[in-house]
């Protein structure tokens, strides 16, 4: 193949994985890793077994319990979700039968798929990783092509080692400048989606670039990539650099060093052409909060609610022209694959230290993204800060990022949440979700209403 033409990073990764073209215009593209969880994993493994198909290379398939598993202390297989235990026991049985690597409920490595995949170095720069979960895009932060698929595609990848793929279009989103104090990767993601729409990235692999992206630490890069699916993108990717290599080196499944010249080629070439380019001045971004029922309904925290779809206003109970600041909240959630890493917990704890959440807050949870993060946070005493402030401190998992029918927020709650989706009913029937950064969640929990973290920090 002639590689003298400048290529984007995602094109390079596709070329590396190209097994063969198909007559229909797609290609068979090798998949290096498949990651399953108990919400969709048992379905895929059971349906494969029923069809008499085997996992081709079990050593490259991983499975964790994160979605249904309880997060209350002392947990086992029991969950509050009716029938939830079956997902856990059936996934365990199917994973053991298939011979894949299972990270079980109380395994020290347990955590949310997209948090532990990077933490353990299961995903590495230049790899293709798929998982039957839309937030697999998070893992693109290490410079991998990692994307969400459905259960049938997961079966395909496990049974054959490849997927049949049409080439995706490419988009580069360049964040120039420097983030203002108190503004985070979460605000970058929300600002992008607010400006270009929840369908704005449709059909594209988005590469995040620019000095404001380079300046982000690895955990913040994961937060930024996490919400690519809320932008309808196929996935997101950030070219690996010294920050990436230093962060990954020596992790359980990662090489001890990244000296091989291969790793240094993992970037878009000078002059590579993207199908679309978007430029954003990072310095102009304010802390963002959503007012409605789509992630595109995000505004600067001190802005006013614009005119949106009538259904969104009706569900959320806010009219055009109202301010978000001062809107009373009943519940607060710090967790999810977006914002439950150690740095997120540290920033929230810094605001909560020596303070109390408002008495009007009826439920406040902190759910670490992984068991390792939980242990690290406890070693620093962060759990004490959270519990002293009035938050519950939980075992790791997806928890109330989504509502599975078990534990929920008090009926009718307005929730300030560090998660990624504010869809109707996402956190429970009738629950109204406002998505924000962990520091905005912490500040709002203290105030009992949506509050600007920059005011508290001052």
């Amino acid at each position, binding site marked *: 193949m002639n590689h003298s033409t400048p290529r984007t990073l995602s094109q390079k990764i596709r070329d590396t994985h190209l097994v063969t073209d198909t007559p229909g215009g797609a290609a068979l593209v090798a998949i290096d890793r498949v990651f399953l969880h108990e919400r969709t994993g048992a379905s895929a493994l059971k349906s494969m077994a029923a069809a008499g198909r085997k996992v081709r290379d079990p050593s490259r398939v991983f499975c964790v319990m994160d979605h249904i598993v309880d997060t209350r202390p002392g947990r086992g297989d029991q969950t509050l979700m009716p029938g939830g235990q079956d997902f856990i026991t059936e996934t365990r049985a199917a994973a053991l039968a298939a011979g894949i690597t299972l990270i079980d409920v109380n395994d020290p490595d347990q955590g949310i798929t997209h948090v532990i995949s990077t933490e353990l170095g299961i995903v590495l720069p230049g790899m293709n990783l798929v998982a039957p979960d839309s937030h697999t895009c998070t893992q693109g932060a290490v410079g991998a092509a990692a994307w969400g698929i459905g259960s*049938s595609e997961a079966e395909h990848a496990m049974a054959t080692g490849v997927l*049949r793929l049409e080439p995706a279009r490419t988009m580069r989103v360049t964040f120039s400048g420097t983030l203002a104090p108190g503004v985070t990767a979460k605000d970058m993601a929300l600002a992008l989606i607010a400006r270009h729409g929840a369908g704005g990235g449709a059909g594209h692999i988005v590469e995040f670039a620019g000095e404001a992206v380079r300046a982000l630490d690895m955990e913040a890069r994961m937060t930024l990539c996490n919400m690519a699916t809320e932008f309808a993108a196929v996935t997101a990717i950030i070219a690996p650099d010294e920050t990436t290599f230093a962060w990954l080196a020596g992790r359980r499944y990662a090489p001890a060093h990244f000296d091989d010249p291969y790793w240094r080629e993992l970037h878009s070439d000078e002059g590579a052409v993207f199908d679309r380019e978007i430029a954003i001045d990072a310095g102009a971004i304010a802390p963002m909060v959503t007012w409605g029922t789509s992630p595109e309904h995000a505004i600067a925290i001190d802005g006013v609610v614009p005119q949106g779809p009538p259904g969104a206003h009706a569900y959320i109970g806010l009219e055009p022209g109202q301010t978000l600041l001062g809107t009373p909240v009943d519940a607060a959630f710090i967790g999810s694959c977006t914002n439950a890493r150690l740095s997120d917990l540290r920033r929230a704890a810094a605001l909560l230290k020596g303070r109390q959440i408002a008495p009007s807050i009826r439920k406040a949870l902190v759910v670490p993204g992984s068991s390792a993060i939980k242990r690290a946070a406890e070693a620093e005493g962060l759990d004490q800060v959270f519990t002293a402030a009035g938050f519950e401190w939980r075992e790791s998992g997806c928890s109330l990022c989504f509502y599975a029918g078990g534990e929920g927020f008090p009926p009718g709650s307005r929730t300030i949440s560090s998660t990624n989706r504010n869809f109707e009913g996402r956190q429970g029937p009738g629950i109204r979700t406002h998505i924000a950064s962990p520091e905005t969640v912490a500040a709002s929990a203290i105030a009992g209403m949506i509050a600007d973290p920059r005011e508290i920090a001052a």
Partner: protein
Amino acid sequence: MTPFTVLASTAVPLLRDNIDTDTIIPSREMKTTGRTGLAAGLFAPWRYSDAAARVPDPSFALNQPQAHGAQILLGGANFGCGSSREHAVWALAEHGIRCVIAESFAPIFRGNCLRNGLLPLILPGDTIATLAWQPVVVDLAAQTVKAGDAVHGFAIEPEPKEMLLGGLDAIDLTLKALPAIDAWTQADRLARPWVYPEGPR
């Protein structure tokens, strides 16, 4: 899989943008690890005034008498966004829907449709609006949508078209290329040894 050739049905309009898979089938309606028993939970938040008691909301499009037995659903932009849950497509299929016509689709949802014999068809928004409650004929081989005298063409890549027309199973098709996959993997083991762990811990 049932081949998709020509489909004639009333087109039921749900003309909103960003219809997400949490709405198509809420997580709490996914009660087992199976792929069936999902139709009753389809659009539960909109279809029922009381979802737990299954009290239908008569104003919801799919509850209208004309929607009975309809196989075509109309949507807006970014249809099927959100969670990757294939249950959204399984629930639609179990309800009898075989084609969703929308301005655009979320990528995972679109892939899930194609793997389950359901046609995700893209048309401009103003064209879609004219199809609401009309008898519509979708011809996949000809790549046309007909309603009355109007004929609208649509685009689809050759491979998904062939798979839908033939009701083909993608895994069976791919397994025919196993020798090529094996050869590629052997070479890759040398080129990128870090991809291949020693085995499960």
